[in-house]
Structures are given as structure tokens and as C-alpha cells.
């Protein structure tokens, strides 16, 4: 499958052909773009008129170049990648819900302001944490690199247990030949010098939650007593980023229907000195006033286009930053298996709640239909994993003609189930945003690789 698309940068139209199956990207002139659309896609509108006006010998010359690329296996490569199901029973990553409590009351929180719909605030004990580490090591098979993500609620509200779990896992890792990479997601309110130093020493990656501009952040991310939190969060996050040096971190925000001009928030975060930025669309039911709806998609697409222009200019002119969804490793990237299987939820990636219950991922916590077991009593069933094991992009009919299929893997399992009722049916709003970001990422990669010549 060949995906033909255009991108305008600084008044110049760039024309691209993306060969989905081979992962080849070609920058072509306008004539070749028209011939490609005729050869591989659908010609319509102005393109059809322009193509009709082309000389036959020029079309033949371009067709010959395409034939050469096809012969070399970098254009119009047929789909050959097949997979039946994921391996189950070997686990490599756990999301530890270190507490179901939070010192913020974010209006869009999928975890019901940190409590995950439970009637009381729950804190993971060290005993549960230890059992979770034992469970991970036991189920990790031959894998050497294991991951533990401390998540909440707000994990720094239970920091002493986090520290003990890290220490225990490091000890057990030495005994069993396992290397632990820890990550932690925090709203920053409890960050102080001592905590920052500890996180910098122990955490492979830290995600700092901040939505951007003060008015945007404070509208939805209020403290328990109803006050805005942005000023405190920003100060702590900046301090953290400064001390983080070259280790991984992200500032991670959420945009909603209230700030469809979210590029302003990304640029705001850039201007505050952050270099690793992720701003994600909120995922909420349609009846929420904050929900992203189909009618918002044209504006969101225009925002991503604006971001791409700012991104290219900014990186070329001394204000360098990364945007999570514009980073593509076109020359390497993950292996085919990873591209087909995606996040691994329910199979190699599981979540453990404060009381030890095991779920396919953090988004399912508390949904008892999806409970796989409990780390405290060796109760663990693979029945639910089997359902997730077939969640492979080649098994999803709606993904087969998508140019981004090997980069998105067919969407978030939780979103697919919660919004479409089926793990194999991608959530269409996410798809549209993904496709737009992917196309822009390809254009950015090409322009940065070749300059603007």
C-alpha cells in the first residue's frame, strides 16, 4: 500500500509517498506525485485535472522510476507480515498503583480523581509491593530487562513504600539476574530537593504532569481545597528538569475540548525550558463537556499542522524540543513483533492495585470482569490474557488500510473496549489524530533529514 500526501512548509509544497509495508519514504516532485496517485491511489479534483494535462512521455518516464522502486522492494510492497497471537504467560512490565489517593482533583481523571471509584483511599503496603516484584520475576521467563512503573493517584503520597520496593527489587534483581527500569508519574506537588535527588538516582524515566498555561492547567487541575496548582507544579517541574540533566523525563499534559488551541500549551512548556514534551488528548465519554468529539477533529488537525511548523522552526533556530508524537525512528525503531503487538497490555504488561489485584493495564483497575488474579495468594489466571493475545494489528480489519498501522498497532486496548465495546475495533477519534500526527511526523523527518532544499 502506498500512501500519497502533501505537506506545505514555508510556502513550498512537499510531496511524499509512504510505502506502508516496507517502511520506505520517498520525497517526489509534483509530477511524480500525480502519477503515483494515478498508479496507487485515487486521482480527483485539481490533481485529476493536472494529471490529465501531463505529457504521455513524462508519465512514462516517471512510471519507469516507480517500476524500478517496486523491483527493489521499496514501493507498493504487498502485505506479507502475518501473526496469529501474542505469547502469554511471560511478563516484563508492571504498573504498580502505589496509592489510590491524590492531592489533586483533576476534573478529567479517568481514575475518578485518583480513587479508581473505590469508596476509600487505598495505599499499597510494602508487603503487596514485594509480592508484586516476586510475581514479576517469577513470570518474567528469560527476560532480563523488567519494568516497574509507579502510578497512582499520586505515587509520591506513598513514597516510603516506593523506596522500599525499589530497594527490594534491586536486591532480587541481583539474585535472579534481572535488570529493573523504574518509572514514576507525578503531579509534582510533593517534589522537593531530597525527592528529586532520589528520583534522579533511581528512576529510568519520570513523567511530570502539567497541562501548560496557568489558566488551562488551573481550570481542571485543582487542589483538594479548590485552588489552582499550576504555579507550584511549574516551579517544581522546572527544578526537576534542571537537575535531571541527560536522563529521561517528560512533561506530560492533557488537552480537552476546553483548550483545542493546545499548541499554545506545548509552546508555553517549551518556553519554560522543557525539552521533552507530551500533550495527550483527553479520553472521556461523549457526554462530558471536556470530551474530544468528531466535530473537533478539523481544528485539532489544524493545530497539529501548526505545531509541525513551529516544531521545525523551533528546532532549527535554537529552541530545540521533542514532541512525543512527532518522534519516529524511521531507520530503526521497534522490531516487527513490537509493531504488531503494541503496548502488550494483558499479556506482557499488567497493573497491580494497592490490594494486589492484577488487571490488564492501569486503565482497567477496578473493573472486576478484567481481574486476572491477586499477587498475595498466587491466584493468577491466563484466561483474560488469551483475549488480549489476539489483539494484534493484523487481526484488526479497520487497520489494514491505515498508513500508520505499524506505528500505532491498532490503538489502546482500553479505549477500544470502553468506547467501541471490542478490543479489535479502534476508537475512531484516536485513529484520526494518530493518522494526522503520523503524516506530519513523516514530513518532519524528511525535512529535517534533507534540509529545506
Amino acid at each position: 500500500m502506498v500512501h500519497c500526501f502533501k505537506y506545505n512548509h514555508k510556502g513550498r509544497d512537499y510531496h511524499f509517498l509512504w510505502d506502508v509495508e516496507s517502511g520506505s519514504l520517498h520525497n517526489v516532485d509534483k509530477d511524480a506525485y500525480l502519477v503515483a496517485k494515478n498508479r496507487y491511489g485515487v486521482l480527483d479534483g485539481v490533481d485529476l485535472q493536472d494529471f490529465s494535462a501531463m505529457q504521455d512521455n513524462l508519465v512514462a518516464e516517471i512510471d519507469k522510476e516507480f517500476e524500478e522502486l517496486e523491483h527493489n522492494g521499496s514501493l507498493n510492497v504487498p502485505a506479507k507480515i502475518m501473526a496469529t497471537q501474542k505469547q502469554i504467560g511471560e511478563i516484563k512490565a508492571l504498573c504498580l498503583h502505589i496509592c489510590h489517593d491524590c492531592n489533586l482533583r483533576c476534573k478529567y481523571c479517568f481514575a475518578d480523581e485518583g480513587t479508581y471509584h473505590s469508596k476509600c483511599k487505598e495505599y499499597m503496603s510494602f508487603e503487596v509491593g514485594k509480592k508484586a516484584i516476586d510475581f514479576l520475576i517469577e513470570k518474567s521467563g528469560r527476560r532480563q530487562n523488567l519494568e516497574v512503573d509507579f502510578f497512582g493517584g499520586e505515587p509520591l503520597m506513598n513514597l516510603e513504600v516506593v523506596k522500599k520496593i525499589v530497594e527490594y527489587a534491586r536486591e532480587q534483581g541481583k539474585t535472579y539476574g534481572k535488570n529493573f527500569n523504574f518509572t514514576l508519574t507525578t503531579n509534582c506537588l510533593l517534589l522537593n530537593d531530597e525527592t528529586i535527588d532520589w528520583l534522579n538516582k533511581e528512576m529510568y524515566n519520570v513523567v511530570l504532569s502539567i497541562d501548560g498555561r496557568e489558566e488551562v492547567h488551573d481550570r481542571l487541575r485543582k487542589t483538594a481545597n479548590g485552588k489552582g496548582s499550576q504555579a507550584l507544579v511549574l516551579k517544581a517541574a522546572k527544578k526537576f528538569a534542571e537537575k535531571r540533566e541527560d536522563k529521561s523525563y517528560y512533561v506530560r499534559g492533557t488537552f480537552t475540548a476546553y483548550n483545542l488551541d493546545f499548541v499554545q500549551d506545548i509552546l508555553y512548556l517549551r518556553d519554560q525550558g522543557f525539552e521533552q514534551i507530551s500533550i495527550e488528548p483527553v479520553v472521556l465519554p461523549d457526554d462530558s463537556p471536556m470530551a474530544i468529539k468528531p466535530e473537533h477533529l478539523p481544528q485539532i488537525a489544524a493545530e497539529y499542522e501548526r505545531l509541525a511548523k513551529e516544531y521545525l522552526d523551533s528546532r532549527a533556530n535554537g529552541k530545540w524540543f521533542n514532541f512525543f508524537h512527532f518522534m519516529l525512528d524511521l531507520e530503526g525503531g521497534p522490531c516487527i513483533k513490537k509493531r504488531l503487538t503494541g503496548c502488550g497490555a494483558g499479556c506482557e504488561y499488567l497493573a497491580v492495585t494497592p490490594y494486589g489485584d492484577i488487571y490488564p493495564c492501569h486503565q482497567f483497575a477496578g473493573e472486576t470482569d478484567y481481574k486476572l488474579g491477586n499477587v498475595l495468594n498466587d491466584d493468577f489466571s491466563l484466561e483474560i490474557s488469551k483475549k488480549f493475545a489476539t489483539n494484534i494489528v493484523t487481526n484488526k480489519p479497520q487497520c489494514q488500510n491505515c498508513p500508520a498501522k505499524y506505528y500505532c498497532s491498532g490503538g489502546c486496548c482500553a479505549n477500544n473496549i470502553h468506547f467501541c465495546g471490542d478490543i479489535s475495533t479502534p476508537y475512531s477519534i484516536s485513529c484520526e489524530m494518530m493518522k494526522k500526527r503520523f503524516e506530519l511526523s513523516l514530513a518532519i523527518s524528511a525535512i529535517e533529514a534533507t534540509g529545506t532544499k
Partner: protein
Amino acid sequence: MKHINTIVNNGMKKSGNIGCGECQSSCQSACKTSCTVGNQSCRHQDERINTTKKPLL
């Protein structure tokens, strides 16, 4: 070629079919609400794109 400039040739083949399962699980990296894998890297590659830093001038 006169009309075509190939930017990336056969990127899928270069990404290989290792399947060792040692790479970072994507939901751990930053987003927590999407399962993008395009910005993940193979554990066996020297440079991980998630830690890409500002180029040295």
C-alpha cells in the same frame, strides 16, 4: 532518479524481527493513554530515540 528522492529505504526491514521482548513497553514511556510504538526503539540499538537530546553544535 530524476523525480524521486528516497528519504528512507526499507525501514521495516532495518527494524528487524528480533522479538526478544526486552524493549520498553510503550505505555510506560509517557503517554499512558495511547499505545504508539513508532517512537520506541529496539533495545539492541545503540541509541534510544526516547532519550534523544538536543544535537551538539
